[in-house]
């Protein structure tokens, strides 16, 4: 089902590429991944075997940008095509909004196509989907191969439900985007219509709410201020002097894998009405409600562009302050043999001045710890 989040201001849909083994589902995603600008897509994640056969699923998030104030996000999944992976295929179908059935155009693969389509329909029915209602596009893939069936033949054998079809060659990219564009269009139209139909069954009071605020339809529970008050603790008390980073490191919903700007959210307490404007002021509604987390002492100042593990390297325990840490490091110097070994290994490469410094340092520590 389409997930619409008014706080993050995003609409999120799930599209699954289904089909028999080796029909080109993963290749479709790989083509999209290579051709779409990196600002539009996230990383392609493949849970595959060593032989590059999909084991669980491939996953590619796409963010096509802001439309009417909402970011439109699509999550593209593939399923493992091999027959014996039906359990995992079914799991991936959970909550699907649209399906692309990738069929292999070679004549000897037709039986597998028919079997996979029947399997798809079975699995969808188990989740309670009506196959005639769910957006579904069939892609006749591998059209670049010499020995293939005609689309008429394939239609006759495969397309008994009269789904829209596309010819494609995923390795070179022909038809890949056309298929994706159509399925996205069908998914959005379905979302629009299903919402429209459910709205029409509502009382008339819903109608005037559509151009203005959605809030009248949502009677706010009186409980709302209470949990908000519970977390409104100023963060100043908690961090110690050795923990200079406070809330900057804490980001509620603002950092996407996409380079697109973070979702615009509104100031807390304001109505969530301004749906139609794309230029909603980007204000973090939740900043003041973030509790006083203790950031990692070793963490650098929050830098979204920084690599993932940069701040994770040295994380002393919270009770350990800097002087204790230094002392811990110096403890090893009390072990003379270790110190000698250490200096022995680095001396040959040392400049004379560094060597003197090293000797000075060593004598200082010897003095400090009373070593003769």
């Amino acid at each position, binding site marked *: *089902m*389409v*997930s*619409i*989040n008014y*706080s*993050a201001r995003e*609409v999120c849909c*799930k599209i699954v590429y289904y089909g028999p083994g080796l029909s080109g589902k993963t290749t479709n995603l790989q083509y999209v991944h290579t*051709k*779409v*600008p990196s600002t539009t897509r*996230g*990383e392609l*994640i493949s*849970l595959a075997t060593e032989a590059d056969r999909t084991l669980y699923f491939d*996953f590619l*998030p796409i963010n*096509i*940008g802001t*439309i*009417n104030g909402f970011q439109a996000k699509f*999550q593209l999944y593939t399923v493992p095509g091999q027959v014996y992976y039906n359990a995992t295929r079914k*799991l*991936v179908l*959970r*909550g*699907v*909004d649209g399906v692309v059935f990738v069929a292999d155009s070679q004549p000897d693969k037709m039986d597998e196509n028919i079997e996979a389509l029947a399997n798809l329909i079975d699995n969808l029915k188990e989740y309670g989907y009506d196959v005639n209602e769910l957006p579904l596009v069939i892609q006749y893939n591998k059209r670049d191969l010499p020995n293939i069936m005609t689309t008429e033949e394939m239609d006759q054998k495969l397309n008994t439900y009269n789904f829209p079809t596309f010819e494609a060659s995923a390795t070179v*990219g022909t038809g890949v985007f056309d298929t*994706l*564009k159509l399925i*996205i*269009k069908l998914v*959005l139209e379905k*979302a*629009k219509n299903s*919402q429209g139909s*459910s*709205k029409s*069954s509502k009382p008339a009071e819903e109608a005037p709410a559509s151009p203005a605020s959605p809030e009248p*339809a*949502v009677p*706010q*529970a009186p409980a*709302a201020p209470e*949990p908000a008050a*519970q977390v409104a603790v100023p963060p100043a008390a908690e961090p110690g002097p050795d923990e200079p980073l406070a809330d900057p*490191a804490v980001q509620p919903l603002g950092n996407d*894998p996409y380079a697109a700007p973070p979702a615009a959210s509104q100031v*807390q307490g304001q109505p969530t009405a301004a*749906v139609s404007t794309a230029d909603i002021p980007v204000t973090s*509604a*939740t900043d003041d*409600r973030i509790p006083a*987390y203790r*950031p990692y002492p070793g*963490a650098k100042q929050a830098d979204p562009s920084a690599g*993932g593990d940069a701040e994770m390297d040295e*994380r002393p325990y919270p009770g350990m302050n800097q002087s204790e840490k230094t002392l811990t490091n110096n403890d090893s110097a009390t072990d003379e043999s270790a110190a000698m070994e250490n200096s022995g290994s680095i001396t040959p490469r040392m400049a004379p001045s560094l060597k003197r410094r090293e000797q000075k340092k060593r004598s200082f520590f010897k003095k400090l710890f009373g070593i003769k």
Partner: protein
Amino acid sequence: MSDSNLIIYEEEINQIEALISKMLKGAEAKCALLVDKDGHLITRLGFTHSLDTTALAALLAGSFASTKEIARLVGEPEFSVLFHQGKKDHIHMSIVGDRSILVVIFDDRTTIGMVRLYAKETATGLSKIFVEITEKSASGRKSAVEGDFVERAQEKLDDIFQD
């Protein structure tokens, strides 16, 4: 199932985030994600700037789904709590209601017991909110996908998807 979209308004997200914030503070955890079982990220709080939360949400939902199948094979309806232990960071996942997963990432500054305690309490609060959201979504809420949304999306797609 496919007919009702999940529509969450800002006030509900605020309520959800307030509960999760309280949990993060109490359990001294690093960050928390609330993930739909379909793999959509609902919200995230805490120290998440270095995480690819979109991918994480999809993988965690997949992990939970496969564990559910394992549970079924051993005769359980589902495992309500999942725990991954790492060298530095650990992940605690617990079910919220019937369609969401609360994911808490924490390290050795706290304990699994603390996280579990707070996560359980938070999950109870969150599931109440989700019951309301599901009811309201099913009874027809104002959707963002309306008007010329589809047409404008098509224009964007034409710009982006060029061979």
